[in-house]
């Protein structure tokens, strides 16, 4: 599987409602290393899903941006509209399509800086 299949994929909740597209995949270390994965193996921890992905791409999804004033406002609000879903909460993953489990826990995407 490649990030190509997931990034930009459409996300649907349990009853087929379109909830946004996948913008980013958060990896967590501590997975069991496989033959090629190298020592601190990283596995897919959670998906960032939301309407607009440009803000994440520019880096406004995380707190490290001391960004210019009006841009931070605009992009942070854009980024705030997306939510984070754990990998385990995914019902099905097909090519360019992801379906969430019913009652999947949706955490806010933007870390409080």
């Amino acid at each position, binding site marked *: 599987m490649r990030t190509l299949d997931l990034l930009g994929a459409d996300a649907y909740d349990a009853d087929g409602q379109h909830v946004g597209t996948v913008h980013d995949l958060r990896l967590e270390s501590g997975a069991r290393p496989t033959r090629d994965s190298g020592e601190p193996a990283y596995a897919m921890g959670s998906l960032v899903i939301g309407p607009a992905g440009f803000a994440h791409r*520019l880096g406004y999804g995380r707190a490290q941006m001391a960004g*210019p*004033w009006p841009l931070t406002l605009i992009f942070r609000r854009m980024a705030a509209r997306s939510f984070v879903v754990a990998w385990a909460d995914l019902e099905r993953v097909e090519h360019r399509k992801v379906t969430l489990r019913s009652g999947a826990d949706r955490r806010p995407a933007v870390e409080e800086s």
Partner: protein
Amino acid sequence: MKRIFAVALGLVTAIGGFVDIGNLVTSGVTGARFSMSLTWAIVVGTIGMTVYAEMAGRVAAVAGRPVFHVVRERLGVRFGLFNLLACCLLNLLTLAAEIGGIGMALELVSDVSYLLWVPLIALALWGALWRLPFKVIENLFGVIGLSLLVFIVALFWLPVDWGSLTSSALHPSVPPTEAYTTYFFYAVSLIGACLVPYQIIFFSSGGVEEGWTRSSMFQMRLNTIVGFPLGGVLSIAIMATSAVVLQPLGTDVGHLSQVGLPVALALGKVGLAFAIVGFFAATFAAGAEATLSTGYAVSQYFGWAWGKWLRPSSAPQFHVICLITMILGTMLVLTTIDPITITLVAVVLGAAAIPLTFLPVLVIANDRDYLGDQVNGRFANVMGVVFLAVTVVVSVVTLPLLFWTRGGA
């Protein structure tokens, strides 16, 4: 003493690096047509360029990242590729204008048409890029900075009515005989002449090549914050000489020779020699810069080895891209399209594409992952956002103006 010399050299190089055929032509044309009422455009362009060059220089010095690494990372693959193609086209147009400019400078010395010089110029430019070390091109900028100062000197020898000059500069107004659209078309061309994408790419990539570190920040800041505005003053001086001499004659400047005429009237053949040397060096150095910038942009986007100091065999794609750009630029000039027209189109389209290059630079300059404590201060951010807004307005207005005024007729 040696340190002062190095600082001075950096300063003069920055002045030279700022002025190219675009500044020479647009300042000459607008001075003859609008006198000094478009000075504000040069000031806006110069400050915008200074703010963003300083940011790009800081990113290069602290994070060691040239512009197009940043562009691809922050704008993504698709938008980055669009930006890359726009910059390559602009560099090509600018290169053609510079080659035409070199030809015209040689024509002023040899009285042989510029077109016949073009193949020779292409060979000389390619030889310089392929063999000459980076330092020589840098020193060439220094020669420009010094020789073009003759325009400022000439201003004092000409019968200048300083009162009317400064008043027309400070109270900009559209002359009755000119339409608003033409006035703002030339304002955009002046701003575009200062905010040239390849200068940002060249400045930051050159910084990485020379291995700027945090310690070289002082020199970099001095070059941008003092050197570039001096380049702007030089452009204003060229506009002033054209306003003082050519405007009373009612001339529409269409040739580089007319831009140099005021210097001859003021200082005779000696002044003329400096002006021609300045023309030649400015266009030659800017031609090399435009070619290198295309090589930098493409190689950095695709992640290939890049760098002028790398021998051609160790950075093959980079040097081949420079060669291809050179050939295409030469062919464009040989189509006998008037170089002055190419320059105006290149400068105006450049103004349209500027936000594409500025946005990622502004964003990265605020990223603590990259710059740690050297992120933008409040002042840099305010200026950055103001000039990003200016460039967005300029880029929205440019194409309609270009067609509405049919190339500034």
